[in-house]
């Protein structure tokens, strides 16, 4: 599949690498297909590029890098929604908001993580309730910025 993107120009991805988000993302419910792309300069984050909208690309990262205790409980209906047979095979990414001018402005949305089922190429944005996780968790806290 050829995908037109603002950031990476025209790219060609294998159809089997396309994740279906049957419900889209919150606020983007018409966006049903995304691909995960490595950052061209490498690094700990990736891009979740919309297949339909060239300009829509989220920065996503594995939350374990800055929040090792992060814990996502996937509810039964959510397990069903992404056809998860084995919870071990799923992986979680969170969307980073990279606005502002300093690294302290970079935040992660821990309340709405993305869960991916690579076996079926299905994914979903979860809405966590009953946790302390917010939508604007600083990514560079003092501890992660200055590892001892």
């Amino acid at each position, binding site marked *: 599949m050829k995908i037109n993107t603002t950031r990476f120009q025209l790219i060609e991805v294998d159809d089997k690498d396309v994740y279906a988000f049957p419900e889209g993302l919150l606020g983007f419910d018409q966006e049903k297909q995304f691909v995960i792309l490595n950052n061209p300069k490498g690094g700990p984050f990736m891009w979740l590029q919309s297949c339909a909208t060239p300009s829509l690309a989220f920065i996503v990262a594995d939350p374990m890098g800055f929040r090792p205790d992060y814990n996502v409980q996937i509810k039964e209906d959510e397990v069903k929604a992404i056809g998860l047979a084995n919870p071990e095979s799923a992986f979680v990414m969170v969307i980073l908001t990279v606005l502002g001018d300093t690294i302290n402005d970079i935040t992660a949305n821990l309340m709405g993580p993305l869960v991916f089922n690579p076996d079926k190429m299905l994914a979903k944005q979860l809405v966590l309730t009953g946790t302390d996780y*917010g939508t604007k968790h600083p990514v560079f806290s003092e501890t992660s910025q200055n590892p001892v």
Partner: protein
Amino acid sequence: MLVLTRQVNEIIMIGDNIEITVVAVKGDKVKIGIKAPTSIGVYRKEVYDAIREENIRAAAAPKESMLDALLKLKVPIKKDDKKKKKDSDAKV
């Protein structure tokens, strides 16, 4: 907006497969039961709005300088072989 009066345990149907039940009323609090297909997300509006707004914020194109700053983010250590290799490389 359609406004209906219901008593406790009475149900409202939305379409063929969504049921809203008034479970209990106590003072200014109403407990509501919702039966809906798993494909339909059911959220408290304030939680939904918070995530929706953050998604929209996150969709804005970042500055390149900020992306470079983000490269300093720690990569999580995993049992994954590829990552392991990277870690040992880093030590050398």
